């Protein structure tokens, strides 16, 4: 594991650019640390201190393109966080309105800032940022045809990438400490539970721009990456991912300085009643607004407001499906637009359905020089457990944390 991080760093040191050079590279090496408020449990890791590295290499010549991108982390205080991932490793060909790609790809289908019902491709490393977890590359063959002011893309995903769930000792874990998480299994059809990573998954996405509006529609027939069912087996808790068909899309409209956004998705799971594995079909809808203005000194302020709701299931099921089942977010971002590129963001999430569930986040970042930057964040979670089994955000109650990251970019 650690040698991979070192290799990423070494390759990063070889970065070079040039206008005639078809290769471009960039990357980041960072020292990062995080501290959680003490939960009085000796079996959990309340702090982390380690190194992070990311390398991004791109190739573009004529009609051909390629990308290689990955990251790695080693944590001296919390070895359960040690992780490496390939985000992208693909070859592509593009000519006029056609584009084909083959390899590991990282996609981002979201239009909103905090809640992302439509951003379904790519498994996540869930032992990372709660609002925007790190993504893992997915093996995809894609073919895009442009038309109008957008296009249609067909995706074929022959391999399932298992999400990285936080270890039981992590303060971001979904299972109690002391409970072992076993490797996952997945349900490719109602009667077959397998650990074979290969199988047919496909998707279709349509995008268009019409004046001030951008919209997209998608259909996915794939293995779920977001909402595993947990089952007790001999040596621990096993996450099981069910087959699901997702239908949804995004819509964004610019109204002067105001941006209105909608993301929606309906999840139709294949149930395995005989194996007693079931995930409720449900819909998710997120609506957001963003309003910006400029201050006299050239800085910018942005107000954010978003809401998300899980529909078509009971309140109890909603809480089991996701920590953000009927929540609203308000936030403010201030960018000084100065030479140091200073930026301060504050967000606050409250659950409208379940009383006393709050999450707040304060983040500051700035450049220290042309190659160094620092980022500090503070998160508090107030969601006291009010039953025998914690539900929704209660799983992370009082996992308040402070994070600091010092990055060197190249």
């Amino acid at each position, binding site marked *: 594991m650690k040698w991979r991080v070192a290799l990423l760093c070494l390759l990063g040191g070889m970065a070079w650019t040039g206008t005639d050079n078809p290769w*471009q590279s960039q990357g980041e090496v960072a020292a990062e640390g995080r501290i959680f408020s003490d939960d009085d449990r000796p079996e959990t890791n309340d702090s982390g201190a380690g190194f992070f590295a990311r390398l991004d290499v791109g190739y573009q010549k004529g009609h051909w393109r390629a990308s290689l991108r990955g990251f790695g982390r080693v944590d001296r205080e919390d070895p359960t966080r040690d992780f490496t991932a390939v*985000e992208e490793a693909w070859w592509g060909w593009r000519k006029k309105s056609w584009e084909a790609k083959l390899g590991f790809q990282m996609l981002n289908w*979201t*239009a909103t800032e905090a809640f992302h019902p439509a951003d379904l491709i790519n498994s996540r490393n869930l032992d990372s940022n709660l609002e925007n977890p790190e993504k893992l590359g997915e093996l995809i063959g894609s073919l895009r045809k*442009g038309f109008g*002011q*957008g296009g249609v893309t067909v995706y074929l995903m022959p391999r399932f990438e298992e999400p990285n769930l936080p270890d039981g000792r992590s303060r971001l874990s979904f299972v109690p400490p002391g409970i072992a998480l076993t490797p996952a299994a997945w349900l490719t059809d109602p009667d077959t539970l397998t650990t074979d990573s290969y199988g047919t998954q496909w998707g279709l996405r349509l995008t268009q721009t019409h004046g001030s509006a951008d919209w997209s529609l998608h259909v996915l027939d794939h293995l779920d990456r977001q909402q595993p069912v947990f089952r007790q087996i001999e040596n621990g808790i096993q996450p099981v991912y069910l087959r699901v068909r997702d239908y949804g899309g995004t819509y964004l409209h610019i109204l002067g300085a105001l941006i209105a956004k909608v993301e929606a998705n309906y999840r139709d799971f294949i149930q395995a009643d005989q194996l007693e594995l079931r995930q409720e079909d449900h819909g998710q809808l997120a609506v957001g607004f963003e309003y910006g203005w400029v201050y006299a000194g050239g800085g*910018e302020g942005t107000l954010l407001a978003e809401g998300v709701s899980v529909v078509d299931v009971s309140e109890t099921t909603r809480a089991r499906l996701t920590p953000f089942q009927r929540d609203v977010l308000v936030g403010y971002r201030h960018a000084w637009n100065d030479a140091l590129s200073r930026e301060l963001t504050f967000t606050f999430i409250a659950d409208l359905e379940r009383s006393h569930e709050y999450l707040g986040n304060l983040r500051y970042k700035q450049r220290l020089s042309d190659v160094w*930057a620092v980022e500090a964040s503070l998160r508090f979670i107030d969601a006291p457990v009010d039953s025998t089994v914690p539900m929704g955000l209660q799983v992370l109650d009082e996992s308040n944390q402070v994070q600091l990251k010092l990055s060197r970019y190249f």
Partner: protein
Amino acid sequence: MKIMVLCLFGLMAWATTPESEGLRIATLVDKANEGFVGEYAEMEMVLINAHGDKTVRKLNSQTKEKLDDGDMSISIFQWPADVKGTKMLTWSHKTGDDDQWLYLPALKRVKRISSRNKSGSFMGSEFSYEDLGSQEVEEFTYKFLEETTLEGRKVWKLERIPVSSKSGYSKEWVWLDQTYNNPVRIEYYDRKQELLKIATFKDYKAYGTYWRADTIEMENVQTGKRSVITWNVRELGKSYSEEQFASDYLTD
């Protein structure tokens, strides 16, 4: 007879008001710059604070000319290192707000943004987004002030007022070189009608029949800060397809 002469002079005065003359010159200059097809450029921007400290920014740009509307352009940031790979895509329009998208490479995310707030600072420099955006004729009202010389060169001096209420300027005075068909000096006045910034266009070079300034210096007279953009590479006549300016393609 006298009545006829008076009518004739009256007609002439009506035909060439300062406003109509200003619009005529602005349109003439705009037409003279049409037909470049497309442009590739590599730029370096130096930010200089009031103490003389310097910070460098680098970016590349591709522009596709559209004669029936505003131009399409992509700016790709190269330096500082933390913003390398960030891209801004702009579909300019002669009337109304431009369409803009921002590509954030860390998240592989294409984010559509509002172009309404044009007075914000570009990369922490003294140039605002509206300073660097395409200067379509329809975005201003004009008034011819005088025909004069500036540093030995014959220029038209115009006053132009941004049509958009979101502009950071109440008016601009523009010195248009009669040979370059481009400005050599622009004075920007803030919403309080006070002089805010002065842009000086230098090192004009001929690219075929088109003249382009290789250096633009923007001085903020109220803060003492300056920013200087220099074009290290510029190629006109580049043939780009519209697909290259599709928002879906920003990710690679």
